[in-house]
């Protein structure tokens, strides 16, 4: 019996390769949420008064809100007093002081190595700078000096608060105000770490910037906050990756990402989200409740969101674009895979305000097992947005007959010259297709992987190369055991 159990565990673990924990001394505050906790976090990070004020306002506002229930999700109740809001795995206990002096706990270095994210610059992926965040603290940011030569600021948001207070103060909360929604208010009150990026006027960032988020400590929530400001005529491509250990209980991840894009600037933001999805019976997994938004402030600015979502027990996420600048262009490319008991309610909002603004939405949902996968999107055209155009295409692919795919497209158009198009399809992998592959010597699992990757190709191709290869493998692994 025990042999059988260990076999079962082996199979389960094979499916989620990142389920290990790192044994490091972690400084965790007691569970619970109160103004004291908000004070504690702010103090721990040595923050100025205005930021403490911002946090407290958010916290007080959050107390007046109820958790939203409109998602097509069966959300387990979250006890916000049963979560620890700060966990610091770095030895010094004070993130900013020693973290770039080379005194990183070798265990942490090993963890990120194991995740394929080497923190030593000589070993790094060519052309990629990384900010590595574990639990509430940024462990290391690579290539900072090299980027600084071009005037680019890439650091943890905690450091940015200390070193670039004016920039942070100007933009923090300017795209996602703390009053935006329940989880945005919570994040604004207790956010711990995340990345800050500033690309100065006319600078094309010479390397990919990326943040790798890792949850490690038990019973904690991760509240990351990322702020990207791309000044006039500048360009940056930013990548985000996420993993967490396998745990029987749910873990909360409530993040905010804000992006400001000025005149003629361009930002590409890519995510490969592989948080622990829970086991095959739906136990455990990360609750990924995220607010991401970009503001295309300048004329002819561009922003594209590309996401490959394979992990998390629950995904509630709508990376959105506010197209204020005339002639600005926004894109949203998404692949969301759900298997077993995973649930995803994800999509985007495109808010057209400026003239001749354009947006594209390409969403590919893949559902297997007993999972539920919903696309939810809003295309809004304000009366000012003469000549606005949107094209949306939402495809769903079903594997098996116990899963669900849902599409909730909303359109709100207030300008007669606007053109808004929406297309949707639902398809199923047929037995005949799988048998045809089998007869040519291709196993069913490999056939599913081939077909799914073919289906998601349009989105995967938008990812930077190394990420694309990784994402392809991930699609296959996430759907293991989904058919047959």
């Amino acid at each position, binding site marked *: 019996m025990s042999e059988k159990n260990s076999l079962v565990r082996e199979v389960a673990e094979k499916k989620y390769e990142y389920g290990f924990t790192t044994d490091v001394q972690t400084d965790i505050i007691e569970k619970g949420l109160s103004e004291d906790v908000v004070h504690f976090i702010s103090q721990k990070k040595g923050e100025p008064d205005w930021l403490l004020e911002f946090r407290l306002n958010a916290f007080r506002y959050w107390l007046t809100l109820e958790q939203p229930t409109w998602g097509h999700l069966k959300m387990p109740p979250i006890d916000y007093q049963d979560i620890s809001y700060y966990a610091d795995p770095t030895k010094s206990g004070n993130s900013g002081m020693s973290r770039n002096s080379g005194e990183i706990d070798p265990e942490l270095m090993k963890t990120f190595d194991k995740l394929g994210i080497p923190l030593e610059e000589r070993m790094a992926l060519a052309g990629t700078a990384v900010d590595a965040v574990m639990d509430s603290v940024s462990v290391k940011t690579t290539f900072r000096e090299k980027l600084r030569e071009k005037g680019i600021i890439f650091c943890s948001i905690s450091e940015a608060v200390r070193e670039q207070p004016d920039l942070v103060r100007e933009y923090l909360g300017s795209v996602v105000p703390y009053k935006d929604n329940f989880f945005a208010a919570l994040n604004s009150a207790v956010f711990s770490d995340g990345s800050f990026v500033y690309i100065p006027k006319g600078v094309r960032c010479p390397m990919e910037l990326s943040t790798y988020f890792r949850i490690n400590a038990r019973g904690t929530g991760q509240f990351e906050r990322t702020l990207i400001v791309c000044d006039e005529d500048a360009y940056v491509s930013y990548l985000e990756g996420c993993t967490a250990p396998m745990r029987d209980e749910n873990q909360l991840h409530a993040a905010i990402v804000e992006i400001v894009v000025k005149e003629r600037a361009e930002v590409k933001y890519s995510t490969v989200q592989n948080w622990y999805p829970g086991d095959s019976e739906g136990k455990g997994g990360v609750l990924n409740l995220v607010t991401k938004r970009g503001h295309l402030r300048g004329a002819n600015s561009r922003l594209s969101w590309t996401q490959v979502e394979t992990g998390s027990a629950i995904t509630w996420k709508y990376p959105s674009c506010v197209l204020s600048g005339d002639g600005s262009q926004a894109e949203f490319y998404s692949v969301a895979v759900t298997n077993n008991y995973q649930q995803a309610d994800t999509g985007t909002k495109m808010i057209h305000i400026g003239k001749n603004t354009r947006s594209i939405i390409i969403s590919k949902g893949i559902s297997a097992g007993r999972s539920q996968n919903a696309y939810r999107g809003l295309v809004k055209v304000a009366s000012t947005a003469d000549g606005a155009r949107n094209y949306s295409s939402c495809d769903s692919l079903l594997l098996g007959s116990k899963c669900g795919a849902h599409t909730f497209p909303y359109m709100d158009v207030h300008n007669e010259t606007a053109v808004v198009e929406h297309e949707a399809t639902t398809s199923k992998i*047929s*037995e*005949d*297709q799988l*048998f*045809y*592959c*089998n*007869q*040519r*010597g*291709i*196993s069913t699992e*490999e056939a599913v992987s*081939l*077909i799914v*990757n*073919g*289906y998601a*190709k349009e989105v995967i191709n938008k990812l930077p190369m190394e990420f694309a290869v990784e994402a392809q493998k991930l699609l296959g692994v996430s759907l293991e055991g989904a058919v047959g």
Partner: protein
Amino acid sequence: MLEIRDLHACINGKEILKGINLTVRDGEVHAIMGLNGAGKSTLSNVIVGHPGYEVTEGSIIWDGKDLLSLKPEERAHEGIFLSFQQPVEIPGVSMVNFMRAALNAKRKYQGLEPMPAGDFLKLMREKRSIVELDSKLTSRSVNEGFSGGEKKRNEIFQMAMLEPKLTILDETDSGLDVDALRVVAEGFNKLRKPETSAIVITHYQRLLDYLKPDIVHVLIDGRIVKTGGPELATEIENKGFDWLKTPSPL
């Protein structure tokens, strides 16, 4: 060598094959003729392990191995290839990726490393020319938007790539015009080796004019009722099948 003994098979509980005996030696081409519903396609599907058919009795031995105990992909790796009557479309999967997955799966089964990309593309070009398959088609998704004739040519192209020991052509002639039939049949003949064998399932003589079977069987109501040389096919072309039907036991 393929040896089928007293094979019975059902689909949805209905018995279609009622005791098939058939031996195909290396290098032989066998033709199986018969009317619609006689069980010809069932026989080919059972040989390659289609999950929709249930074998209730009998055995199939392939080169000494119990074929019925192998998964469909293992049967493919063991050198059995079916040219489908109606090849399915697989949108989004390019012919190149599909063929590479198939070829490398077979190589893995044989304990070989995956074929280097350069060699693979060269092989694709080489084999494509044998069946005069347009390069535009191999860059498309599997069978997507192919005409009927192109799909059949694509089947023979895949056979060329995988070099099976036994090929089953399931009504490869259906839906082909005279020119397409010639290209497909000549392609098939070019690919034949002394040790490879084939089972050709057809209603008509015309494909057999090209493929020149060694042995011809007539399948009626789930049983092989007559076996003969190539002259049997000609006889059927002239006289039809009625004279071969066994009188009802009543």
